[in-house]
């Protein structure tokens, strides 16, 4: 309760929390970044000084109250400080995905009318310069890394450290202005604007207030007992709401330390060096890590392999129970303890998970095997369900009630209800203010009573009160026979095979289901290497008959398990094709958070879909691809179409 009072009595904004931390945790590390091979760190009082200097520098450049400041770059302390400095001067930070192509960036910058842009390096500077002609409000750009930028015209371009220096120089003139702007920040002022990646249409700017962010950070920190001693590794995109809440919201609320990797490629090494206590990753990261472990174990010596297999089997049996404090026999405990010394401990150390106290995964469903693998090692991995509009948290799994097939119970202060069509609605203090300059969408999503539609279909499990998500509400449809069609349900089952990276199932309004499948290059490539199968490209590997056979076996296995479910037995995959290219966000086939954009894929590959349904054996196709620098090329291929065995559909068919 004391913290709640603090929230209402003084700390009504992130800058106010910064002032509190600068006194309360003055000499405690707040941010670390590895640079030149050494972890550099800043204490809360140093961070306060850095942010103040930058805020003064921004005033000096003429930032007005209510301006939008776009922030583009990889996770670096300076960019986090930029967000807070923007708030200090009454502006609204707008983090933008750094790998967005120029066109997407132009839309976002134009939509919010950013007058200032703070970027990481030359790559981002070039991108903004490329699109700036159409941005009427754009005035100044600030960059962090001066490399390669010496020759650029610096009339509207400033180096980050110079802006800070100018701010420090103008301290006496501007400090009163800065203080007065900070003092008027209220609980309902905008804290940040985040663009949703949008599975459909243009991205929408979600405005979150100080209330949304601080209340959510407080509730979630209390839910998991997060304290100032936590360490996190900030490596997920800064434009994603989760990173904002973890690396700014919760970090400023509890005063814990945010560590930034040296560069994106060193993430795994940095993870190991930091050993975070609180860790978040989308299922894909856990999947990749598990795949890597398994590949390395395949290459390990016989003795090690046997040791690993023996003790992992034991861990799967008793690990999750131990984690949930359920009764386990003395013998099993002893064996687990030995296993911990020999296998689990060293493995966790290699993965960087030795100290993880609370781990979350969200965004997509996680495979039960992957989930159990980590939990059996003694890593407290849990699931949460959330979205940008809710300031992340809708439901989360409390300690001791963790299962792979639910997303947990409502977070503190969150109310849930299920609509008539099965759609999940919620109401909480984290509910967003509005979509910027888009009142129609705001009204569509949020009703006057504050209930927000998630767009996901699900149900609340009787007895436990846990929420289970089936699929996107708009994707759940009916097949021609009238039986229920839930593509995600089938896709997830297939994606749990390490060989399969991505699946798209079609079948709404049709007689039978078909699927596109992407193989996982790391897993299948390793398998090919071990079996002396030569391949020159992704395309060639994807078309290999043995690979196709392996995928077919997976599909048939999934069909068996789908057939067992009465409601969804119609969703068995009759025919499938292994795609010649990976589905890619640059081609618009996935969102930046790697969710499948069905409509676009359906349009783009209409020829292949037609072939899936007309019974042909193979199909020739040419696909346009976009390279990262925006240039376009094309790939052509002849794809084999395979038919998979299906089981007779249960007798309770709706059509009969």
């Amino acid at each position, binding site marked *: 309760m004391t913290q709640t009072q603090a929230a209402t009595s003084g700390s009504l904004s992130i800058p106010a929390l910064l002032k509190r931390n600068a006194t309360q945790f003055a000499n405690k590390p707040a941010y670390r970044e590895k640079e*030149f091979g050494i972890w550099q760190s800043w204490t809360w009082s140093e961070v306060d000084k850095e942010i103040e200097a930058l805020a003064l520098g921004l005033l000096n450049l003429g930032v007005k109250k209510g301006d939008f400041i776009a922030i583009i770059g990889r996770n670096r302390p300076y960019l986090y400080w930029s967000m807070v400095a923007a708030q200090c001067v009454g502006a609204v930070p707008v983090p933008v995905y750094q790998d967005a192509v120029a066109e997407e960036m132009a839309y976002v910058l134009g939509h919010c009318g950013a007058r200032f842009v703070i970027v990481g390096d030359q790559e981002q500077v070039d991108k903004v310069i490329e699109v700036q002609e159409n941005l009427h409000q754009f005035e100044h750009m600030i960059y962090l890394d001066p490399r390669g930028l*010496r*020759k650029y015209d610096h009339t509207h371009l400033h180096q980050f450290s110079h802006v800070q220096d100018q701010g420090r120089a103008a301290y006496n003139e501007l400090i009163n202005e800065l203080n007065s702007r900070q003092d008027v920040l209220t609980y309902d002022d905008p804290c940040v604007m985040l663009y949703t990646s949008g599975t459909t249409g243009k991205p929408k700017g979600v405005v979150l207030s100080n209330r949304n962010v601080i209340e959510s950070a407080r509730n979630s920190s209390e839910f998991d007992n997060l304290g100032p001693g936590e360490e996190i590794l900030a490596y997920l995109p800064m434009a994603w709401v989760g990173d904002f809440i973890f690396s700014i919201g919760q970090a400023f609320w509890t005063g814990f330390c945010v560590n930034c990797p040296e*560069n994106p490629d060193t993430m795994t*090494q940095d993870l190991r060096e930091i050993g975070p206590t609180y860790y978040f990753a989308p299922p894909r990261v856990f999947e990749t890590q598990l795949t890597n472990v398994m590949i390395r174990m395949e290459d390990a010596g016989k003795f090690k392999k046997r040791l690993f297999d023996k003790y992992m089997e034991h861990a799967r049996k008793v690990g999750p129970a131990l984690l949930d404090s359920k009764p386990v026999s003395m013998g099993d405990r002893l064996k687990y303890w030995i296993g911990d010394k020999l296998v689990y401990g060293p493995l966790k150390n290699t993965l960087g998970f030795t100290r993880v106290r609370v781990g979350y995964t969200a965004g997509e469903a996680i495979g039960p095997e992957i989930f159990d693998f980590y939990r059996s090692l003694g890593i407290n991995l849990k699931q949460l369900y959330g979205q940008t509009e809710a300031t992340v948290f809708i439901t989360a799994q409390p300690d001791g009630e963790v299962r792979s097939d639910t997303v947990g119970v409502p977070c503190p202060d969150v109310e849930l209800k299920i609509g008539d069509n099965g759609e999940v609605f919620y109401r909480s203090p984290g509910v967003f203010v509005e979509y910027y300059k888009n009142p129609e969408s705001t009204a569509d999503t949020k009703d006057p009573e504050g209930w927000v539609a998630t767009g996901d279909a699900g149900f609340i499990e009787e007895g436990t009160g846990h929420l289970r998500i089936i699929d996107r509400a708009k994707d759940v449809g009916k097949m021609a026979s009238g039986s229920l069609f839930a593509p995600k349900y089938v896709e997830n089952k297939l994606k749990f095979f390490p060989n399969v990276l991505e699946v798209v199932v079609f079948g709404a309004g049709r007689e039978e289901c078909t699927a596109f499948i992407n193989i996982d290059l790391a897993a299948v490539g390793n398998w090919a290497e071990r079996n002396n199968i030569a391949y020159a490209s992704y395309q060639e590997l994807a078309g290999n008959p043995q690979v196709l056979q392996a995928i077919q076996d997976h599909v048939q296995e999934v069909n068996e398990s789908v057939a067992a479910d009465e409601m969804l037995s119609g969703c068995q995959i009759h025919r499938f094709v292994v795609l010649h290219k990976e589905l890619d966000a640059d081609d618009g086939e996935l969102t930046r958070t790697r969710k499948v954009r069905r409509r676009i894929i359906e349009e783009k590959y209409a020829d292949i879909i037609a072939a899936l349904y007309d019974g042909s054996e193979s199909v020739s196709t040419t696909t346009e691809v976009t390279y990262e620098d925006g240039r376009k090329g094309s790939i052509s291929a002849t794809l084999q179409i395979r038919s998979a065995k299906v089981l007779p559909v249960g007798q309770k068919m709706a059509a009969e």
Partner: protein
Amino acid sequence: MLDQTDGYTTADGRKIGGVVMEMKNITLRFGGVTAIEDISFDIREGEIRAIIGPNGAGKSSMLNVVSGFYIPQEGEVWFRGSPRPPMRPFEVARQGIARTFQNIALFEGMTVLDNVMTGRLTHMNTGVIAQALWKGKAEAEETANREIAEKVIDFLEIQHIRKTPVARLPYGLKKRVELARALAAEPKLLLLDEPMAGMNVEEKEDMCRFILDVNDEFGTTIALIEHDMGVVMDLSDRVVVMDYGKKIGDGTPDEVRANQQVIDAYLGVSHD
């Protein structure tokens, strides 16, 4: 300060200074074979100078003359305004000249970091014993040198392989590590022997950017040999073209492109 006469400004606005190194009528023979015949050209401070030519034109021999590895039978090499006496390679390195090799010459069993640190060797003054005992100035010296090595690693974006043995790296990264080692020596003149040979398009683009950034960031003068005409024309300020040991062209990329002799050497001449 070098003589600044004839300094010029490049198309993208960089100021090119006086002559750093001048080749005066160089002739190099191996027994009866004349590899280089009476070639003269200069390299100016701050420029990117390319030497191009078909296979066997004598490009690598020329670079070896510049680096002091070969001593020409005739002609003089002038460095910073005075003739350079015959030198051994380490003496050349001390003058501030560093190079990379066409067929990567790294220490395969050592890590990337250790390889880059070897580039600092000419800057280390403490003895073997002091370094082994980690006494006195040796520690401070290593720290200072490590800092420079780390800055180069950061500059070339090879942090993720810092502790990886070189033998395990793919070809493109090895090339980058070699450049890192050369840069660690903080050279005034950097010689690159086919920095982009055997690379794919993406690796070539990366390498181009690094070369331009090195030139821009540290003001390093760069002389390079390259096969890929597109790369050369984009990258360099002035180009020397060689064919059968003779110089057949010298000038800006545009001038060279328009030179009939160069066109003949590259496309062949019909003999009928």
